[in-house]
């Protein structure tokens, strides 16, 4: 019996190690690749830990290619998207959760359906429209589509989150003389902070990581987001793997670190929203 138990433990240990290696290994590889100089990068067999560390690739993308500008763009766009989604979405979710009105389920169904629409279905005509208004190559030009992608998800997640908060809280507040809005601000918001937090991260990350619309709706280097800038480092004939690794890490590491720090909240938010 004891032998069986220790065998199982061994099995669990090995499986855990394999899982960690499988999912974190490639990222580790990318990180060290971004610090390897030319001669070490393009050597076979490759070194599994850099013999020489160089920052030349990072210097290249930040100084010559103004990657910081791209980071700034991504940050602004993702930030505004998240902000507006949270504000509008939470109010919507609150209304949907607390009120009973006739088309409630229809609206919810529509919200869900919008979430599932392929981006390609709207990208063409939306492009023409934005171009007419003059919003191509601007921050707002991307914020608008991103909001329309993230808002349904925000409403969905927050609605199911609010549903789990008992309405007695607001009733008590109402009896004490609060208006509904005040009840919302003072009672619900503080309780719902974990949910808000999870949604905030999810929306921010999906806006930050988005490629398709960002690629199509920006033209100039100055307006590009990090995703576009990174993939456009690929040339027609050769692919500069050094700078690409550096750019990939530069754009992804902040997000990865945030996710690691907030992992508990994210898992809760995700699983709660998608599966009951």
């Amino acid at each position, binding site marked *: 019996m004891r032998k069986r138990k220790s065998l199982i433990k061994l099995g669990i240990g090995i499986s855990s190690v394999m899982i960690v290696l499988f*999912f*974190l290994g*490639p990222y580790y590889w990318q990180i060290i690749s971004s610090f390897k100089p030319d001669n070490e990068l393009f050597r076979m067999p490759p070194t599994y830990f850099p013999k020489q560390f160089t920052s030349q690739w990072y210097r290249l993308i930040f100084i010559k290619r103004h990657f910081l500008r791209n980071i700034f763009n991504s940050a602004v766009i993702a930030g505004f998207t998240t902000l507006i989604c949270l504000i509008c979405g939470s109010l919507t979710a609150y209304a949907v959760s607390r009120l009973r009105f006739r088309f409630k389920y229809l609206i919810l169904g529509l919200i*869900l359906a919008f979430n599932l629409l392929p981006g*390609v279905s709207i990208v*063409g005509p939306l492009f023409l429209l934005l171009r007419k208004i003059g919003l191509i190559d601007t921050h707002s030009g991307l914020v608008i589509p991103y909001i329309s992608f993230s808002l349904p998800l925000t409403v969905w997640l927050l609605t199911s989150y609010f549903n789990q908060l008992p309405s007695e809280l607001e009733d008590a507040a109402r009896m004490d003389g609060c208006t509904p*809005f005040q009840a919302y601000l003072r009672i619900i918001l503080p309780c719902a902070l974990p949910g808000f937090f999870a949604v905030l991260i999810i929306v921010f990350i999906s806006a930050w990581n988005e490629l*398709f619309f960002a690629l199509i709706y920006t033209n100039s280097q100055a307006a590009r987001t990090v995703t576009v800038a990174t993939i456009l480092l690929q040339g027609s004939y050769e692919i500069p793997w050094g700078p690409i690794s550096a750019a990939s890490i530069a754009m992804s590491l902040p997000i990865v670190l945030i996710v690691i720090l907030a*992992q508990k909240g994210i898992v809760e938010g995700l699983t709660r929203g998608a599966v009951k």
Partner: protein
Amino acid sequence: MAVVFLYPTIATVWYSFNRMNLVMPWMKGFVGLCNYVDVFTDPRFWNSLRITLYFVGLCVIGSLMLGSGMALFINQSFKGRIIIRIAILVPWALAMCVVSLMWKWMYNDQFGVINAILMQLGLIKDPIGWLQTGTLAIHTAIFIDIWRNTPFVSLLLLAGLQVLPTDLYEAAKVDGANAWRRFISITLPLWKPVILVTILFRTIGAFNWSFDLIYPFTRGGPGNATEVMPLYVYTLYFRNLTYGVASTVAIVMAVIVGIFAVFYVKSIGIKGYV
């Protein structure tokens, strides 16, 4: 009440404004169903459709099998949960295009680490050109998608596992059912709804967002071997500038996804949800 009601109305108007499906299957003049005829008789369209379905199919099956195994595994309590959770969240946190480039480098035929390891282990003699043939390219792309999305799938499935009532298991143990029997008769049936929802969710996701993977990876090549539908639509819109045809294909895609979406919404059971 009024204030809280007004905001969601504005929000609804806001995103119905953006969801303007101004898709015009007609271009500069009404040509009726002419575009549809063109599209359905175009072999490149059928190629793209076939590739997309194949891609989506394998991706979903792959990540489902791997994900369910992982979910079952993680469901057992043990130490080291945090590192596993981190390992699982990292692929999700990375942008698809970053993942795409990351693996592209690893699959590089001359300097990639995958070929290096295979050769060092003595499994192959010459480096494999992973992106040089159509078959290899599409399967490599499928593998990358599975790598990236399995963690999320396993999280969804895990959530489904964790709400299963434990007393059923104890009753079964008392009745003398062994582990396998318990799995088949208790876990699987109760897990099915979650599995179904996950499958549909992942299918729709794979359809919609394969662009971010394929475009930096192969741009649809070699030839048209990896030209999934979003990429095809993109090419039609922004390379060929044929908005009419592009919109037609986009609509077809939306309809296909829509069919899956209907199943998805039904299987979630909105009323029970809210």
